[in-house]
């Protein structure tokens, strides 16, 4: 990362810092304070939007570790979210376990399931691995829907008991906002830390050239499975949070289309960057919300078109925007953000 002019690193610790200058530290602190104070001035609609976005970002961080950093394409990530969601819901409903236990259990359960479905990654890669993860999507959802309907609710929805933390019941958007925000920041911190460790470097080496990585002494077997475990752990945590937040989960919340959209969000946001999930999730979710609002507005402006054609037009524009992003920003928004920051630092190009 380019440093601002006049900032030099004289130690390894300085070189490795994420927020190197005082301005960066204050900026990040200010941003976090703003997030914490947001419920005081933001209304419920924005809280709902941010809660849903934040859960998606957690899942996307996991997918980023798996696909972005380690290069293992997964189009079954939504199913791993379902494992976490149903796992924690069942533990809460059937065994009355508290949320602070069901959340990590949901994550670990999803991680272990991810290990099983990550085994093909030792022999196949690319599109073939993507197909194997699609199989995971169908198999997991079949298991949730069919053999144990009394436990999972089957194809009907499963109701999740209200959650409480330290005797405090979370029952409105603001409560969940702080919980989900806290988890998002924590998981993002873990992701960044992981990628700055030897494990992260091993993942990147495998992504760039797995044969060369193996030649260098990186155990492919171990690190690929670790990537699946960690990626799916994140998905499980996201699923557990989603179950606790919505209080009703059904197989319709974790479909193949959701998995494909998650991959799409990551590609648009930028694979292999911690900021990628933020940008990609925000863009796609914001576009969806704009579609929700724009359709009726177009219908009001031009009543002759009708609501359905307005909705379809908006969908077409949505698709066109995505295509344009992929054409002009193939490396994602995160890469463009880095270029923007570097340009800002170099401007007015006095050197």
């Amino acid at each position: 990362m380019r440093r601002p002019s006049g900032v030099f690193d004289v130690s390894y610790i300085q070189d490795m810092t994420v927020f190197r200058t005082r301005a960066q530290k204050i900026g990040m602190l200010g941003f976090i304070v703003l997030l914490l104070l947001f419920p005081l001035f933001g209304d419920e609609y924005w809280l709902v939007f941010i809660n849903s976005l934040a859960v998606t970002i957690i899942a996307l961080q996991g997918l980023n570790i798996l696909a972005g950093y380690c290069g293992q394409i997964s189009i079954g990530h939504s199913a791993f979210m379902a494992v976490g969601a149903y796992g924690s819901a069942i533990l809460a409903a059937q065994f009355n376990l508290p949320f602070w236990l069901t959340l990590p259990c949901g994550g670990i359960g999803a991680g272990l399931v991810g290990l099983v479905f990550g085994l093909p990654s030792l022999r196949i890669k690319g599109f073939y691995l993507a197909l194997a993860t699609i199989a995971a999507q169908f198999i997991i959802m079949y298991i949730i829907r069919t053999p144990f309907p009394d436990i999972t609710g089957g194809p009907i929805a499963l109701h999740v008991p209200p959650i409480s933390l330290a005797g405090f019941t979370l029952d409105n958007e603001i409560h969940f906002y702080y919980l989900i925000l806290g988890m998002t920041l924590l998981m993002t911190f873990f992701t960044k830390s992981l990628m700055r460790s030897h494990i992260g470097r091993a993942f990147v080496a495998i992504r760039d050239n797995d044969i060369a990585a193996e030649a260098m002494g990186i155990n492919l077997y171990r690190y690929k499975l670790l990537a699946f475990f960690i990626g799916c752990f994140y998905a499980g945590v996201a699923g557990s949070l989603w179950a606790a937040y919505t209080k009703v989960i059904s197989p319709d919340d974790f479909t193949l289309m959701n998995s494909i959209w998650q991959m799409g969000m990551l590609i648009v946001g930028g694979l292999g960057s911690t900021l990628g999930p933020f940008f990609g999730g925000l863009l796609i979710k914001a576009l969806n919300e704009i579609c929700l609002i724009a359709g009726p507005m177009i219908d009001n402006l031009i009543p002759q078109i009708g609501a359905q054609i307005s909705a379809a037009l908006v969908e077409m524009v949505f698709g066109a925007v995505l295509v344009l992003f992929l054409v002009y920003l193939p490396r994602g928004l995160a890469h463009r953000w880095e270029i923007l920051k570097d340009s800002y630092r170099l401007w007015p190009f006095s050197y």
Partner: protein
Amino acid sequence: MRLKTWNCVLVLVVLAAFMASGTFCFAAEKQPIKFVMLTDLTGPAHAQVGPEGWATEDFFKWLDKNGGIAGHPVEVEVIDTKYNLPLIRSAYARVKRMKHVAVSFDAISGGIEALRVEFAKDKIPVMMLTGHAPALYPVSWVMGTMPPYDDVLATTADWIVKNWKENRKPRLALFLGNYASGRSPQLAKWYCEKKGVEVVADELCPLLPTDTSDLLIRIQDAKPDFIFDTLMPDQVKVVLRDKYKLGIKTPQLNFVFNSYLITKTVPPEAYEGYMGYQSCSHWWEKDIPGVQLAYKLYKNRGEVPPGSYILAVGGAMAWAKAVENALKTVGYENLDGQAIYNGYMQIQNYTAEGIFKELSYSKQDVRGCKWLKITKLNKDGNLSNVTDWMEAPWNLKLKTEAGVK
């Protein structure tokens, strides 16, 4: 001088626009009432629920041109939630901030079940055009317009038992559409077993299938006497084609039953004998005033309104009726969710100009219309009645009372 002139012109233009927008009204005009419908205009369920959005839009625009409700203009907004639960949640969060608004939800995606508790907490009654059982029981602030899907399966069990002549138990296969409401007949399997109907197969049909031969073969292998399905139009056309191709002649009953669309998308030899449930009058009952109104509203879109369109016209009429009742009781300024809920409770034996047999709401029963009849498609594309109107048992209530989990 020129800058001052331009400033004056700008101020005048802004003022004119502001006044023309209706925000600043000198005359004492009646304020509008807004009807907001959240439905899946696009997405995998659009073939079934899209027409409901059209009907809502057409009916309220027509109502606005014809005097509105108690002289108040009527505005309608149809929001496309694309079968996506996060979008449904955020759309609802946006809508509930609005004043003088009545809300309707499509139930196909099951989002209504997730938000049921929110409706009661926010005291916002929601009209549900399709029938998703978990949203209607325990009773809360969701108002149905037709029996939910599981009640229809229970009715099927009753009908089979009533007409069964053989010594053995009748065998029923479930071929359900893989969407939230479509899967909900699973809740009535206990009722079938209790009535002596053996459920021998249970298959889920994907939302947009290309081939359902494997599912049909598995059903056929179970040797059912009847098949009950909740397939939407995009599924029905594939299933009936595959069923005909495989030579399967098991009588099949559909709940969604978009019969006119079936005659347009499926060959006659494939749909001949296909039975379905009507919870309201359909396109072929043209002597009914409500159906005639639906034809009139639909004329810019096509020749014959689909069944879901007619149902939604009836539902919209009931919806408007609830708001009208609320206006009469509390007036415009106090029009809120509680008032509209009370307006619903005043609806008794309402037929929506003959569209429904009878629509009533009470604090103990919010299903609305509890009546169903079976009709059959003939090879010439016409329908004929198989049964008269039957009252649907309330499956979830009976299940709870029986202590079945």
